[in-house]
């Protein structure tokens, strides 16, 4: 049985095909249920993990093909220039509030993560892995390499941030009296990148556009802050 399984999965097509199938299924289920938290990525990720763990497919066999998909990382970073360019007019109209807000958010994220990890006695390697979690995956994975964290942990933390933003936004907006759509969108994108932006788009077009803008800017500001992080974390 294990031999047949190995025979079927030990090739470069296997990983690519099941990843495609899982993503397509995720999109379909998301469209059918319309629940933001159940986003295509989360559904696909959990079903792939379940398949690999339950059927006991060697992770190395899955990665044989799947690692080629990962090679798209630099391409996706380059293409982030496009949404930034498309939203330049919106950025232009409230340049200072947007940049000030995102910079404050990025610094809050870095500082609060360090302080809380120290308070809770979390080890250094995990701390470093949690820092780049507010930003979009390609930039987060680029960043975690720069500050020597574990990319797998960063990956989980990025997903956690996306999902948590969708759950906490209403009480947070109320608690901090955030009512302006520009502020709502920037706050969502800075905390919860693309997953949060999907929710922001449901809340309103301007909120969604601002959240989309914040994804790229928060990512760039966080990457720019990495010499600072290396300075704080010797």
């Amino acid at each position: 049985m294990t031999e047949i399984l190995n025979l079927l999965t030990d090739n470069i097509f296997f990983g690519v095909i099941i990843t495609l199938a899982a993503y397509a299924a995720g999109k379909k289920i998301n469209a059918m249920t319309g629940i933001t938290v159940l986003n295509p990525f989360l559904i696909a990720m959990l079903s792939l993990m379940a398949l690999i763990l339950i059927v006991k497919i060697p992770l190395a066999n899955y990665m044989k093909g799947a690692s080629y998909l990962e090679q798209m990382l630099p391409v996706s970073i380059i293409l982030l220039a496009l949404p930034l360019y498309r939203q330049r007019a919106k950025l232009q109209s409230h340049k200072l509030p947007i940049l000030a807000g995102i910079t404050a958010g990025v610094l809050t994220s870095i500082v609060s993560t360090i302080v809380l990890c120290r308070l809770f006695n979390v080890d250094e390697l995990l701390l470093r892995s949690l820092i780049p979690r507010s930003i979009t995956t390609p930039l987060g994975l680029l960043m975690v390499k720069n500050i020597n964290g574990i990319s797998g942990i960063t990956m989980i933390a990025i997903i956690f941030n996306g999902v948590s933003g969708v759950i906490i936004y209403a009480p947070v907006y109320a608690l901090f009296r955030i009512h302006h759509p520009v502020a709502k969108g920037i706050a969502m994108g800075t905390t919860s990148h693309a997953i949060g932006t999907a929710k922001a788009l449901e809340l309103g077009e301007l909120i969604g556009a601002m959240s989309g803008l914040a994804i790229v800017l928060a990512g760039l500001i966080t990457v720019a802050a990495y010499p600072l992080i290396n300075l704080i974390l010797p």
Partner: protein
Amino acid sequence: MIKLSREIILIALLLAAGILIGKLIPFPSSLSSMILLLLLLITGVFKEEYFTGGISDLILKNLAFFFLPPAVKVIDSLGILEGVWVKLVLIMLISNVLVMGVTGMVVQLFLKTEKDHD
């Protein structure tokens, strides 16, 4: 077909330019490429149409797809989380509330001062 080829060639050239810049200054090459693309679009050297309705939009719309492999690979590092995951969830939740709150408040504060100047 010609449009698609042009798009792929431009992306490949941008990638190569980023790698070259990375040899000269210590800066992530994919980010150099991104900033270069932004500059070329702003200065009008590249038209936005070069990148619309083709492979770039397809990738941008389905960005999450390419991150399934690193996410699935997490299976391998789950062991590290044993015993600490409750702490981590708590830390991330508190931090996220602060980040969202502070970001929104600062944006609003600056929007208000902007209005006062009008």
